[in-house]
């Protein structure tokens, strides 16, 4: 079989025309808990994600909600931490928790055949946690050690410090957890917070995987009753954001041979009209391997193993940041190149071909991010937690397909002005 082989020119490409977004379907449990169902995939397994919006935030007890969520499986009136873990592990299931300043969630991953065996344990953790003193003491001790180790890493120091500068130490988005915060955790406060937050009124559920009517029935049996219904109407009181005015920060980390750089600013959330356009600009600037920052600072200069930027959207605010770790001897040169790249986007129009690459790359990523039931559930979760619906993705894709060089430049002028950025470098003297 002989073919003429053209190795110089790429094979013809097909444009990504249609993108099908499978949607989560809303059901309601008997006690009123909304449950969003993503039924996809052929593996006979399921993820049950229970989400609880955080009730309150008190700067004097900054770890209350996260510690409560992480500690819940450490013992109930009926079972010890070990027994609870055994009840999950025996069935090959996984229990995990997730904490953010806005909400906490607990996840159960299990094969469908073990769902009815593991749900009772999940329910017990949710409603009967007792936070034993000795388990709390271990939790405090180990987390304090973890903080001390994290503070040895320039990257962790930079991440924490940057958020504090942008949002203020009193805001949950800006608070840096300390050993003292852990030491201040009290069993009674955790129990009280648990009793108030983990009630059916504050719960919503996303279930993804191979979800049958039987799956929903089982979930309803174990979580759909009114036994954990308790209305207490408290609403989160979040302190105001206090961004520091100073623009340049240096933190010394003795003995470091690399410096961590963070540059960025407070920005809007996903619901802002410029968010989709900003997502494209960010990808082009620092959001993928072929980005301007990677091409220049890694692939041309070799200053770093990696550099990237991101637009982050949380419930009430968002931020933009660039992050990298570079050899300390080239930190100043790297800073200069980062600002040069920012200016370039503001002063020169991006070439069509580069924008086309970004567009296609992002469309491809979008499809990839819908690959499994869990991915589809994550896409739903991110709009749901931002108070948006699926029309957001229509707008996003529309923007992605149509944005041109002019709009990229005007967004860069609007949001990537170096004078508005906060700059933090953590490294040796």
């Amino acid at each position, binding site marked *: *079989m002989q073919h003429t*082989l053209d*190795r*110089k020119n*790429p*094979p013809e*490409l*097909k444009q*990504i025309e249609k993108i099908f977004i499978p949607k989560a379907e809303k059901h309601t449990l008997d006690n009123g808990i909304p449950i969003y169902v993503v039924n996809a995939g*052929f593996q006979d*397994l399921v993820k049950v994600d229970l989400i609880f919006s955080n009730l309150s935030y008190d700067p004097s007890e900054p770890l209350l909600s996260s510690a409560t969520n992480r500690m819940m499986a450490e013992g109930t009136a009926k079972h010890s931490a*070990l027994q609870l*873990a*055994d009840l*999950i*592990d*025996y069935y*090959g*299931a*996984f229990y995990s928790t997730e904490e953010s300043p806005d909400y906490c969630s607990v996840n159960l991953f*299990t094969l469908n055949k*073990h769902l009815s065996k593991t749900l009772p344990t999940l329910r017990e953790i949710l409603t009967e946690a007792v936070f034993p003193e000795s*388990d709390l003491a*271990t939790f405090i*001790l*180990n987390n304090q*050690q*973890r903080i*001390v*180790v994290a503070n*040895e*890493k*320039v990257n962790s120091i930079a991440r924490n410090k940057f958020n504090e500068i942008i949002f203020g130490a009193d805001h949950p988005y800006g608070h840096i957890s300390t050993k003292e915060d852990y030491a201040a955790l009290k069993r009674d406060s955790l129990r009280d917070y648990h009793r108030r937050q983990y009630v059916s009124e504050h719960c919503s559920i996303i279930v993804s995987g191979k979800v049958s009517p039987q799956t929903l029935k089982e979930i309803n049996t174990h979580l759909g009753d009114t036994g954990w219904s308790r209305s207490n109407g408290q609403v989160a009181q979040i302190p105001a954001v206090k961004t520091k005015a100073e623009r340049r920060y240096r933190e010394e980390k003795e003995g470091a*041979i*690399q410096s961590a750089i963070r540059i960025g600013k407070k920005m809007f959330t996903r619901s802002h009209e410029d968010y989709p356009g900003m997502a494209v600009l960010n990808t082009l600037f620092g959001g*993928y*391997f*072929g980005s301007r920052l990677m091409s220049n600072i*890694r692939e*041309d*200069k*070799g*200053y*770093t*193993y990696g550099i990237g930027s991101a637009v982050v959207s949380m419930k009430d605010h968002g931020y933009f940041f660039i992050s990298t*770790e*570079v*050899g300390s001897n080239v930190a100043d040169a790297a800073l200069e190149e980062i600002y040069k790249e920012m200016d370039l986007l503001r002063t020169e129009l991006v070439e069509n071909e580069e924008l*086309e*690459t970004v567009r*296609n*790359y992002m*469309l*491809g*990523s979008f*499809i990839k991010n819908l*690959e*499994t*039931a*869990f991915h589809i559930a994550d896409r739903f979760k991110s709009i749901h937690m931002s108070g948006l619906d699926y029309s957001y993705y229509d707008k996003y894709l529309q923007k992605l397909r149509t944005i041109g060089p002019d709009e990229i430049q005007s967004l860069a002028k609007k949001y990537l002005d170096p004078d508005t950025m906060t700059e933090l470098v953590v490294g040796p003297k």
Partner: protein
Amino acid sequence: MHEDPGTPLATMNILYKVGARDESPDKTGFAHLFEHLMFGGSINIPDYDEPLQMAGGDNNAWTNNDVTNYYLTLPADNLETGFWLESDRMLNLAFSEKSLEVQRNVVIEEFKQRYLNQPYGDVWLLLRPLAYKVHPYQWATIGKEISHVENASMGDVKDFFNRFYCPDNAILVVAGNVKAEKVFELSEHWFGGIQRSVAERKPYPVEPEQTERRELTVERDIPFDSIYRAYHTCSRLDAEFYSVDLLTDIMNRGRSSRMFHSLVKEKNLFSEVNTYMTADFDKGLLIIEGKLVKGVSMKNAEAAIDEELEKLRTGIIKDEEVEKVINKVESTMEFSEMDLADRALNLAIAEYMGDVELVNTEMKLYQSVTGKEIQEQANKIFRDSNCSTLYYLSKERSN
């Protein structure tokens, strides 16, 4: 080839049978540096990434002691772009001086970022030469020292390419929404004309059995003392692999596991403890590692580890305990098959192990393991003379 009509995507996974164990002792870190150079342009295509991104694709690669693995995912309609890119860089590289110079720097920064500028980062640089005296597993994938990467020359690069980057040293897996027939046709078209390697593969030096206990103590500017124990054990290919894997699961998988419960929760001696196998293609290691709680003496910490090991050697391993870890393996396998790219990788690894069917039969091998076999492995492995211990101590405390 794995057909999945339920996805709009396709994945190409190319595994090259070359890793850090194929390096010479004075030129370590080379397989990994080479992985970086594979993105520096090939004979007919100046830039690997850009055309792939233009096709809506994404890619990455990794290197370990045994293999170098490259994978890309893209819309299934554009699969041929993957064939074009991957076959051209198997055919020949551009060997640009600029790319070599930049990637040397990038890898040096990676060395610093991951191994030198991290607390506990250099553990594997110390533990490997302690446990291996002959076999090339004595150095880490990143290399023994930065100078080996710094000194890499274009001659070395070309030699490495000619020896290892050829069709008879590669396994290609394609998975996704494409027909097998089409994939085989594309494979023939793009890869069919590429020359096989003429280089001979030498067998790897065999690590002699360890006959006495080894230890190394280092002091570092870190907050908490740590201990790392490395025991010699079987390879990924050995029949006893499944028993040893389940042994480490009983010891340390999840919050109901023995080591976690006893050492972290009950006795508060460690803030973290982990037990795992390296699962290498030659004889590998079983590692026990832990970070001590501040104020705990190394003697007490070790005594508690030894007590757990003694229980495994002579105590009872209950049926439920074995069932539990087997159930965990079963669900882990099921979860790991959700991603197309993971399925493709699993196929490539199984093929390299010698039997692609293993992706379907390994679960049975796990299910047939008994508590008695696990105990036998515990007795075989947990002997002082089979152990290398690294005491990684905090400077401030010993001062």
